[in-house]
C-alpha cells in the first residue's frame, strides 16, 4: 500500500514538472503572439493582459508598410533554399567518392576536411569579406549563399551513411553496366533520403538563422536578411534613446519571422530531431 502510494506521488510530481516545462517553453512564444495583436494603446497596459481586448492587425500592417519586411523574407528564403540545394548536390557527390571510391590522398583529404569542424566560422569572416569586396559581390544574395556551400557537416553525415551501403548492391549495379554517376543518382541518393533530409534541415536552418556573415556582408536594405533586418530595426539599440521601444510592431515582426519555422518544425519534427542527433554525433 505504502509503495503504491509513493509511486502515485512520484507520478504526480513528474506530471507537475512536465507542465512546468511546457509553460516555461511556451509562455514567451504565446506572449509574443498576444502582444503582436494588441493596439498601440493596449500594449503597455499594466497589469499585462493575456487576451487582447481589441485585437488588431495594425502592427502587421505597420511592419509591412514601413519596413522592407517582405524583401528580407524573400532574401532569406531564397538564400537558404539555394544554399541547401547546392550543398546536397555537391556534398553527396563528394561523400560518394569518399565512401565508395579508392583514390590517392583520400584519407588525408578527408581528415583535412573534418579538421575544419574545429575551426570557428569567425576566423573566415574577414578574409571572406575582403574576397567578396574584391569581386564586387558584397550586398548580393550570392554573397549570402556561397560561404554556406563550403560546409563540412553535410559531407561528414553523408559519407558515414554511404559507407553503410552494402558493397554487393553496388557490384550488382556495376555488372548491369551502370556508371558511377548513374549509381550515385539512382541508387545512392534514393537510399540516403533520411540522411539527406537531415542534412537539408541542418543546412537550411543554419543559413536561415545565420547572423554574423549577413550582418557583415550586406549593408543595403534590399539585400538584407530577416535576422539582420529584425536585429537592426527592432533590437534594443534601434530605438531613439529615451523613447519607448515599439513593442507592438516588434512582436508582429517576430511572429511573422517565427511562425513559418514553427509550422515547418511541427510538420517535420521527426527530421528535425534526427538532424539534431546527427549534429551531435559530429562532435
Amino acid at each position, binding site marked *: 500500500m505504502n509503495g503504491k502510494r509513493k509511486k502515485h506521488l512520484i507520478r504526480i510530481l513528474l*506530471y507537475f*514538472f512536465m507542465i512546468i*516545462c511546457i509553460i516555461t*517553453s*511556451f509562455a*514567451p512564444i504565446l*506572449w*509574443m503572439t498576444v*502582444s503582436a495583436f494588441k493596439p498601440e494603446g493596449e500594449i*503597455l497596459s*499594466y497589469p499585462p493582459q493575456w487576451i487582447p481586448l481589441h485585437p488588431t492587425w495594425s502592427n502587421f500592417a505597420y511592419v509591412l508598410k514601413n519596413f522592407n519586411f517582405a524583401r528580407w523574407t524573400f532574401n532569406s528564403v531564397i538564400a537558404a533554399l539555394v544554399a541547401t540545394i547546392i550543398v546536397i548536390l555537391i556534398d553527396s*557527390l*563528394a561523400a*560518394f*567518392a569518399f565512401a*565508395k*571510391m*579508392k*583514390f590517392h590522398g583520400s584519407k588525408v*583529404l578527408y581528415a583535412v*576536411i573534418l579538421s*575544419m569542424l574545429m575551426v*570557428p566560422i*569567425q*576566423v573566415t*569572416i*574577414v*578574409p*571572406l569579406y*575582403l*574576397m567578396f569586396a574584391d569581386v564586387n559581390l558584397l550586398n548580393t544574395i550570392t554573397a549570402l549563399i556561397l560561404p554556406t*556551400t*563550403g560546409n*563540412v557537416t553535410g559531407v561528414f553525415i553523408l559519407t558515414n551513411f554511404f559507407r553503410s551501403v552494402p*558493397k554487393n548492391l553496388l557490384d550488382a549495379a556495376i555488372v548491369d553496366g551502370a556508371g*558511377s554517376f548513374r549509381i550515385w543518382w539512382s541508387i545512392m541518393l534514393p537510399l540516403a533520403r533520411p540522411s539527406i533530409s537531415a542534412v537539408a534541415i541542418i543546412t537550411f*536552418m543554419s543559413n536561415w*538563422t545565420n*547572423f554574423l556573415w549577413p*550582418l*557583415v556582408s550586406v549593408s543595403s536594405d534590399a539585400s538584407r536578411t*530577416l*535576422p*539582420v533586418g529584425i*536585429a537592426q530595426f527592432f*533590437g*534594443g539599440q534601434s530605438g531613439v534613446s529615451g523613447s519607448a521601444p515599439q*513593442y507592438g510592431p*516588434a*512582436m508582429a*515582426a*517576430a511572429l511573422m519571422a*517565427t511562425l513559418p*519555422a*514553427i509550422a515547418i518544425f511541427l510538420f517535420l*519534427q521527426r527530421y528535425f530531431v534526427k538532424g539534431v*542527433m546527427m549534429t*551531435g*554525433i559530429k*562532435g
Partner: protein
Amino acid sequence: MIGKKRTYRIVPYLFLIPYLFAFITFRFGPSIAGFFVSLTRWNIVGQARFVGLQNFIDLFRDPNFMRSLINTLYFMLLTVPALVVGGLLIAMLVDQSLKGRIVTRTFVFMPYVIMSTVVGVIWLWIFDAHFGILNYYLSFLGIRPIAWLSSVNWAMPAVAIATIWWTIGFNMILFLAGLQDIPNELKEAARIDGASSWQVFWNITFPLLSPTMIVVVMLTLINTFQVFAQVYVMTGGGPAMATLTVVQYMYVQSFQYYRLGYGSAIAYVIFIFLVAFILLEGKFLKKSGDLN
C-alpha cells in the same frame, strides 16, 4: 570498390571537384588567410603591414578585450551547467513512460527553431523594466522591479536566461537519444536485484551515458563561447560593456573600426580557446576514467 580499374581513376576527382572548390574557396582558404591577416596591421584603406605577433600581444594588454573575455566566461558559467544538467533532467523526464512526454518534448524543443535575433527581441520585451511581464510576476513574490537589461549586474544573467530557454531543447534531444540507446534489460536486471532508482541511475545510466555527455558538454562549451546575436539585439554589449562578448568585440574591431588585422587576431584567439576547451575536456575525462 569502384575506381579499382584504371579507366575509373579520374572519376573520384570529378565527383570531388565541385565540393572541393567550395570548401577550399569559402572554408579552408579563408581560415588560413585569416591567420596571415592576423599578423598584419591593416586598416581597410591602405596597405597591410606585417607586424608578427604584435596584435596578439596587444590583445592581452587591451583592457576591453580582457573585459570581453571575462564577460564571455561569466556567460558560460551562467549557462553551461544549467544547459547540461537541465537538459539531462528534462531528457530523463520525457524518457519516462508517461502520457504527454511527446508533447513536452515538442514544446521544450520549439524555441530552438526561432532565430537568434528574434529570441533577443522577444526577451527584450519580457525583460522590459517598466512594462515587462517578468517583473510583473516577480512582484507577486515580493521582488521589486529589476532594470534587467540596463543594469550592470543583471544584464548578463538576463541574456543567459534567454539563451537557456532558447537552446536547452537541443541538449534534451541529444541526451534523449543517448538514454534510449541504453538497453532496458540492464536497468531491469539491476532493479530485480534490489537496486534503488538512484543506484540504477548512478551505476548504470550515468556511466553508459558518458559518450553522449562528452558530446553535449563539448557542443555547449563551443556554442556558448561564440555567443553574439542575442547580445547584439538585447544589450548591444552594454550597459558599460557589461555584456560585451568576444565575438562581438571581434565584430566591432573588424567592421566598425575596420582594424582587420586586430579583428582577425581576436578570431584566432577564439579558435585557440575552442581547441583548449576540447583538450581540457579530453584530459578531464581521462582522469575520471583512471579513477574508475
